[in-house]
């Protein structure tokens, strides 16, 4: 019978492929043009895509700006924090 540690390792391996999201939340401080600028300069989005995501943040209170592994999304969230945006990781619904 596998040890508890091994079971946990297995559990981690099984969840590795599960996608995570980088979510940016609306805040009343950052200028809309700044948020769009961050999306363009950091993610390399087109102006139209950056605007669209910025408006999603503004109107819906949040937008998913990237999806991928947990490690990648942690990097994006840290970058968003560097730019002063409110961002967090969420797990994708399966």
């Amino acid at each position, binding site marked *: 019978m596998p040890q508890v540690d091994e079971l946990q390792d297995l559990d981690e391996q099984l969840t590795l492929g599960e996608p995570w999201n980088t979510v940016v939340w609306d805040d*009343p401080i950052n*200028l809309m*043009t*700044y948020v769009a600028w961050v999306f363009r300069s950091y993610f390399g989005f087109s102006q139209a895509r950056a605007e669209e995501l910025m408006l999603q943040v503004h109107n819906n209170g949040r937008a998913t700006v990237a999806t991928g592994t947990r490690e990648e999304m*942690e990097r994006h*969230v*840290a970058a968003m924090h*560097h730019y*002063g945006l*409110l961002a967090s990781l969420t797990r994708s619904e399966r």
Partner: protein
Amino acid sequence: MRAFGVASGGEILAEFESQEVMMFTDLVQQIIALLVRVKEGEADIDGAVLSRLFPDAYADDIEASDEFRRFTIDDLIDRKIENAQGVLESFDKAGVRATAEGDVTLVRLDREFSMYWLGTLTDLRLVLATNLGIGTEAPAVEGADNEYVQSLYEWFGFTQGSLIEALEEVEGISG
């Protein structure tokens, strides 16, 4: 200060009055001092300001957020300080132009220094807003001259907005 503008060579320019330079550089130095104190783990820092500058990375998981913060905060602080020092440097390198109303400071920014400015203007606005009770559940700081803080907050917002417009003009994006 008038809005940032773009010179014919694509350089981004703005003029500041000496009083504005003093106020601005003083606040930038204050933010560097704040960041250094956070890095040194000093305990007397306003929790609302801290959690806005270094937000939770996991909305519903305090433990994971704390761990994330432990791993990322030193690097974030170093980069915020680098931004702030870049802003101070651009004032050091600024030219002076004599006008009928006195000398004005002429700041020139390339893309690299514009990044420093946008970062620091954001950090300043986040701290000022949090002190005003904007974007936080914490109440406005008592005893502060909120009208003055509000005017600074708006001034930095105007400055940042005009810098973004100038950058977009350089990049060929019309606002």
